[in-house]
């Protein structure tokens, strides 16, 4: 019995790590640029598929991941510069524009990859299972857990210990003013957007290796990201980490304890939480 418990907790943690990687990109863009990028899921999917092709072609998981991040960051740049710059500052328009982009990206990936189910090949060293605290557990999932922690640390340092972090936040509050202070705010936004997008691409490759990639995988990961960010509170990295943890564990344990209630297990507590803290655990009023 003990074994099963640890097993389920590991499941929750590793799943949480993956959705954190994806959701951190989402929260970066959402929290700091105030853009609810509903194309984030599509970037995840496209990144994953591109990573799959690159990994297949090169035989290397790392090459796949890098290729995916680069491609998706470039897509992010196009999205930001080419499209979002037309609707800057109007939240609702941005949301809906990214939704349109999500449709397009999703459809394009269907044309290119044909809608079969793909899984990114995992390097040999990470294949198979290992013993942890008395349970057999896949090595790859442990790797995902470690990667999640690394991403968290790196982002935290970037935002809180660098000037860039402050710049980004100021730009969100009043871009005109930042511009008037001599900073090319557009470039800062672009950089942030590309970073957020690249994280979606990374998530696509990492997640694509065990959750597989298929049409509508974008919507599912997006829903998880939304839940994470809503629970954690806009723009809070720590919130996103906590939210991911909560969603991951609820998902894992909820499915065991209340198999009938699948989605309710995640969104029910979320709704209750929001009734008391409308801005999420770490959300601050603007």
């Amino acid at each position, binding site marked *: 019995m003990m074994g099963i418990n640890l097993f389920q907790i590991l499941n929750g943690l590793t799943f949480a790590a993956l959705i954190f990687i994806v959701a951190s990109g989402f929260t970066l863009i959402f929290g700091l640029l105030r853009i609810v990028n509903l194309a984030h899921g599509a970037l995840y999917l496209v990144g994953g598929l591109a990573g799959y092709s690159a990994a297949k072609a090169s035989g290397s998981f790392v090459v796949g991941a890098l290729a995916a991040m680069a491609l998706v960051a470039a897509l992010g740049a196009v999205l930001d510069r080419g499209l979002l710059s037309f609707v800057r500052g109007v939240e609702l328009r941005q949301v809906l524009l990214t939704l349109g982009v999500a449709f397009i990206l999703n459809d394009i990936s269907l044309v290119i990859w044909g809608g079969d189910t793909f899984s990114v090949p995992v390097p040999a060293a990470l294949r198979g299972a290992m013993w942890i605290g008395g349970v057999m557990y896949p090595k790859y999932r442990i790797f995902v857990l470690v990667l999640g922690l690394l991403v968290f640390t790196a982002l935290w340092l970037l935002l809180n210990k660098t*000037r860039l972090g*402050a*710049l980004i*936040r*100021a730009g*969100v*509050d*009043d871009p*005109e*003013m*930042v*511009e*008037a*202070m*001599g*900073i*090319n*705010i557009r470039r800062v936004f672009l950089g942030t957007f590309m970073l957020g997008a690249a994280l979606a691409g990374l998530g696509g490759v990492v997640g694509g290796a065990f959750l597989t990639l298929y049409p509508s995988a974008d919507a599912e990961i997006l829903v998880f990201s939304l839940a994470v960010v809503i629970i954690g509170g806009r723009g809070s990295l720590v919130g996103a980490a906590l939210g991911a943890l909560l969603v991951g564990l609820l998902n894992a344990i909820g499915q065991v304890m209340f198999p009938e209630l699948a989605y309710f297990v995640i969104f029910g507590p979320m709704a209750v939480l929001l009734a008391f803290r409308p801005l999420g655990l770490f959300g*601050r009023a*603007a």
Partner: protein
Amino acid sequence: MLEIRDLHSFYGEAHVVQGASLTVRDGEVVALLGRNGMGKTSLIRSVMGLSAPQVRQGSVAWKGEVLTGMKSHEIAGRKIALVPQGRRLFPSLTVTEHLTMIKSARARNGWTVDRVMELFPRLAERRQHRGNQLSGGERQMLAVARALMIDPELILMDEPSEGLAPVMVQHLEGIIARLKEAGLAILLVEQNLYSALAVADRVYVIETGKIVHEADASALVDNPQSLIRFLGVH
């Protein structure tokens, strides 16, 4: 030297700056006076290259270089700072972050966070407050402090004394004087006539987007009646 020549600016079809010309010489404090809605802010914004109002005619030159048509971050890069009307702080940044977010390019006047805090001791006590957690006066101080951090040679101040306690207004006058001593040129929009006269070398009066009067401040200090006539006080 800042030279504004026959500037025309528009909000859509509304012609708000209608051929204003004025000059600010190096190291000079120039006050721009005028009733509400006469186009003072619009003029300042046009100089700063902000997206509205749109400049359709005339030119702004700084040290002989034409600024019209430049992006506002490029203008700021030429050491022109703005203290906007209504302060426009960043609600999600702390006081300290407001001051450290820009890394000033090799400080000529050497404005550092510490030096600025010395000028505004009140801010030093509020370092961790966010932009929207400050009182009106504190906000104004921070707005000026923030502008100093880009090490400007010209500051455009749009009604900096608005909402300040008398003691703060005097403090601000002192600050403007000290900035002037440090060699900065200042274009100051003011409602408070006396405060303006206390610090300015010259004053301009703007009415419906046109400069209607120009005078030396020293000549007015003892006899402000002529100016008051222009400002429409009875």
